[in-house]
């Protein structure tokens, strides 16, 4: 049982996850720089701090935000290559948390950034640079719980976000979700919201709205995948890969029908720790042996 909760893992797998989170965050910040930096000069009255931002009485000065933004990019690049990780790693995790909290304190909580921030904290505060670094691609460090625990923790965090999403669907939409009605309303709402802002409607919205049977299947499947997510971390490799492929497919579907793009999820980084975590049954068998 202990093997399931705190499984052994390889330094290489944790290193892969660290490099992926570091690279994604760095590229994301560079690509989204205009969106972030434009907020630095926003009307102070719009600042509505959330999370750790609640300690603030007002928005930080623009110069400080510019400094934090630039520093986070540099830290992200350093984390990607695994440089001076004992110092850089924690700073990176805290910088990402601070920056994303600040951005979500301007009236719209951007849920898709929350998972990135928590994963950044996991890789930042764990020994994730014992392999896959600019100095050494492989590692001679033996498998250990100190490498398995962070990956398993990140996997648990990912599946918990999906579980919360599934519960929220049931709380808001009730069993209407299972009939596809609520999903149809969401797709229609997203399409018309884009239309009133003069934007093009999602390419597959009309197609899916014309096929209600397909919508029902998609709604039930999505609900099952989300509510069943926590079980996935206790399963073997084949089921994990199947579930992960289905989740990525779901995000592609959401992008095509609602134009809602969760890049971190869409390219499979959110579910990466689920795939990298050690098969708990194998660990338990090894322990028993």
């Amino acid at each position, binding site marked *: 049982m202990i093997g399931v909760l705190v499984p052994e893992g390889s330094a290489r797998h944790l290193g892969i996850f660290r490099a992926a989170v570091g690279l994604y965050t760095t590229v994301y910040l560079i690509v989204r720089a205009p*969106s972030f930096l*434009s907020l630095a000069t926003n*009307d102070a*009255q*719009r600042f509505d701090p959330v999370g750790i931002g609640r300690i603030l009485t007002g928005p930080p000065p623009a110069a400080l935000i510019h400094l934090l933004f630039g520093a986070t990019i540099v830290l992200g690049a350093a984390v990607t290559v695994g440089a001076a990780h004992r110092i850089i790693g924690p700073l990176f995790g805290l910088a990402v948390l601070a920056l994303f909290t600040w951005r979500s304190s301007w*009236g*719209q909580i*951007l849920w898709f950034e929350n998972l990135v921030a928590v994963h950044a904290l996991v890789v930042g505060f764990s020994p994730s640079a014992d392999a896959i670094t600019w100095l050494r691609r492989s590692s001679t460090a033996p498998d250990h719980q100190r490498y398995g625990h962070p990956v398993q923790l990140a996997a648990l965090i990912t599946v918990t976000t999906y579980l919360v999403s599934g519960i929220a669907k049931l709380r808001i939409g009730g069993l209407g979700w299972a009939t596809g009605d609520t999903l149809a*309303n969401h797709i*229609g*709402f*997203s*399409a*018309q*919201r*884009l*239309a*009133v*802002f*003069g*934007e093009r*409607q999602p390419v597959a919205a009309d197609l899916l*709205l014309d096929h209600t049977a397909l919508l029902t299947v998609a709604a039930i499947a999505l609900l099952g995948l989300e509510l069943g997510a926590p079980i996935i971390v206790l399963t073997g490799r084949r089921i994990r890969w199947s579930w992960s492929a289905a989740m990525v497919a779901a995000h592609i579907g959401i992008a095509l029908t609602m*134009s809602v793009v969760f890049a971190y999820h869409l390219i499979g980084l959110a579910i990466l720790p689920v795939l990298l975590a050690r098969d708990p049954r194998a660990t338990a068998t090894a322990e028993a042996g």
Partner: protein
Amino acid sequence: MATFNTAVTIGPDGNWHRLSLDWIANTDDPLVAQSLLSTELHRDGGETLCSEIIDRAPSASPPTIQLVADRVDLQTGQLLTRTVHRECDP
């Protein structure tokens, strides 16, 4: 049916056109724009947002701009009713 807050330009001939996300809210995210419109209309009736939209206008003499609530049929996309929250003074 659903009601969306948004912004439109009104031409001299009375024809209207929708403003882009970028023009309304300096963003490419419809969730951010929706949230901003809702918050600003509640806060000061859209006065501050109006001045920001006019500042972002591509021409020096921007057309008439209105902050509106459009009631739309979700199935067909047809505009059912429009309520004008505020007309932005240039």
